[in-house]
């Protein structure tokens, strides 16, 4: 008898109608009808012949088609048994830092070398995003980046406004000088385009819309979906948007994310330890996708970024992200800004200018 062995790092996530087969190693995902997912699940317990018998002769071709598809994508293989040694993937999640990611909304008046920032980056923060809403001189960017040279930071993303002096050659020089910079987003650009610098290793995305405040953040789009071990496992236990994340907004206030309403003090007057010891600071980080309305029925829930700052019902932190246009019950994407049911929340957050 032949069996189909599905690799353990290919994880099925079932939604209301459709499922997602997430290949966490090759970082891809496959959108499948729930019927297909059911067959794949059945095959994890039964031989292929048993499966064909179970679903009837009429479905033989369809089912062998599924198996051929899975094999062609190298998501599994046939063998004379379900190999007993192939164990399920352990989905636990942990990191060696209390804060893994930081967002800074840049403000010239804030001193990014003072104690608060030193203590913050001593926690072995891995990723940093620096958002510039206003034009900034390249020298100032270099000065800021030089301050992170002694840290264990691995990844810096710069969000910069379009400026003719910041051409690709200048950016290339910049990232070669500060190799921690691994991604750039240039907003307010005359055109939308994607480039790569530093021997094709650093993407530069030119974005025609203006990003002049954090209000633009929190959109849920398929190109933001990521199928990998880190996000998938974290998503099982924590909020992928806010868990172990910390932001410093443009006025120097410490928040979970720049868009969240409450702050936990100011960088000049609050000690980092105080923030870390504050239970309220960690509250949102514990909200899992499986607990959020609609998201819990969505097949994309464990590849999604989520957003707890702008939600459909501002009074209910367990409601769906406001800026998500996907309906997992109909499997359609609509423009969220045009949804009549979202208009009151849009007004509540004062996002009218953003949605224009």
């Amino acid at each position, binding site marked *: 008898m032949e069996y189909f062995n599905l690799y353990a790092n290919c994880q099925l996530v079932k939604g209301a109608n459709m499922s997602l087969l997430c290949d966490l190693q090759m970082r891809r995902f496959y959108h499948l009808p729930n019927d297909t997912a059911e067959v794949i699940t059945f095959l994890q317990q039964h031989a292929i012949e048993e499966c064909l018998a179970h679903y009837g002769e009429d479905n033989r071709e369809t089912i062998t088609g599924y198996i051929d598809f899975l094999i062609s994508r190298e998501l599994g293989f046939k063998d004379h048994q379900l190999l007993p*040694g192939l*164990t399920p993937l352990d989905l636990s999640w942990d990191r060696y830092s209390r804060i893994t990611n930081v967002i800074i909304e840049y403000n010239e008046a804030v001193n990014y070398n003072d104690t608060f920032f030193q203590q913050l980056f001593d926690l*072995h923060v891995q990723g940093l995003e620096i958002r510039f809403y206003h034009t900034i001189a390249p020298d100032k960017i270099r000065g800021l980046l030089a301050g992170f040279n002694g840290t264990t930071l691995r990844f810096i993303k710069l969000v910069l406004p379009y400026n003719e002096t910041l051409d690709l050659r200048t950016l290339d020089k910049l990232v070669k000088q500060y190799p921690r910079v691994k991604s750039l987003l240039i907003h307010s650009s005359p055109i939308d385009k994607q480039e790569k610098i530093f021997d094709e290793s650093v993407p530069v995305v030119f974005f025609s819309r203006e990003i002049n405040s954090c209000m633009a953040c929190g959109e849920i789009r398929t190109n933001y979906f990521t199928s990998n*071990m880190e996000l998938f*496992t974290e998503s099982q236990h924590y909020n992928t948007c806010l868990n172990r994340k910390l932001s410093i907004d443009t006025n120097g206030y410490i928040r979970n994310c720049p868009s969240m309403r409450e702050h936990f003090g100011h960088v000049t007057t609050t000690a980092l330890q105080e923030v870390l010891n504050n239970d309220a600071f960690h509250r949102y980080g514990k909200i899992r996708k499986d607990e959020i309305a609609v998201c819990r029925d969505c097949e994309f829930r464990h590849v999604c970024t989520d957003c707890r700052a702008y939600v459909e019902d501002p009074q209910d932190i367990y409601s769906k992200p406001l800026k998500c246009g996907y309906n997992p019950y109909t499997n359609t994407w609509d423009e969220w800004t045009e949804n009549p049911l979202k208009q009151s929340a849009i007004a509540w957050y004062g996002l009218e200018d953003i949605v224009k």
Partner: protein
Amino acid sequence: MSQQILILSQSHLEGTTDHVCQWMNHLQIPYLRVNGEDLFQMQHLGDLPSNSQTGVVWYRRKISSFPAKYSLKQDDFATQYTLKRFLIDEFNGLHAFLFYTIDRQKWMNDPISEDNLNKLHVLALARQHGLNTPFTEVVTTKAVIIRLLERCPELIVKPVSECILVEDAAGGQYKMLTKTISKANLQQVPEKFFPSLVQEKIIKKFEIRTFYLDGTCHSMAIFSQDNRNTKEDFRNYDNKRPNRTVPYKLPDDLELKLGQLMKALGFRTGSIDLMVDLQGNYHFLEINPEGQFGMVSYPCNYYLEKKVAQLLNKSILHEKEIY
């Protein structure tokens, strides 16, 4: 004086040590990391970590590279090489002094066993412990190869010691990897040659890399068979179609035997290579006591770096109870 965890490593290109150290910091476990490079700063022997200070030693690496270049006044290729070898021996002589000054039982792995690990001995020892190993011989003539090819259709040749990296004058690098000998390429084999290790070629279903940590096997299956580039050796990476790497659990009796073998060698940690043939039989290949385990830890979501940090902490607490 309170006893501490000592980590012997190198200052560069040792992500595994860095990763474990970051876990130790996060878990607030105190430790002392001494890189081989640090020995160039010592003033006298008293600067070496002492036995009384040390509760447990995790020995990862000796050194990445000497902090300064040393050369002869008169440049000469052959003597330059001799000097290089000499300096490595000098450094090793100093470094290995620690193997004797710090009590043997404090080392996670017996350092003398680790530094002198012999592939042929490990295979013989593995067989004594009931592990299945591929037929292995060391031969010097084509005539014997021809006879062996009647017994197994294909042989592989690999070093008794370790693979090396060869550089040509233009700076091109050549990795030494496992090669196959069969009737098809027999004509390339000279009549007489340097004593060489040949092994029966196992047609594999998949490979297994096990990280053994203090009695527990953390295993990963590596599927590369349908991937021509990696048929013989999974280190021939194929970036477009990488090997599939998934968590795996070895049968209990096999784990038991591997544990006994590790104990016999005095190792509490190490990487073990195994192969599974088309019939599903396991073949033990070799042990790398200082093998990288990041390549097992990440794809299988095992958090081995955290487990190593916790084991070191447990060991030091245990030491404290004894004293």
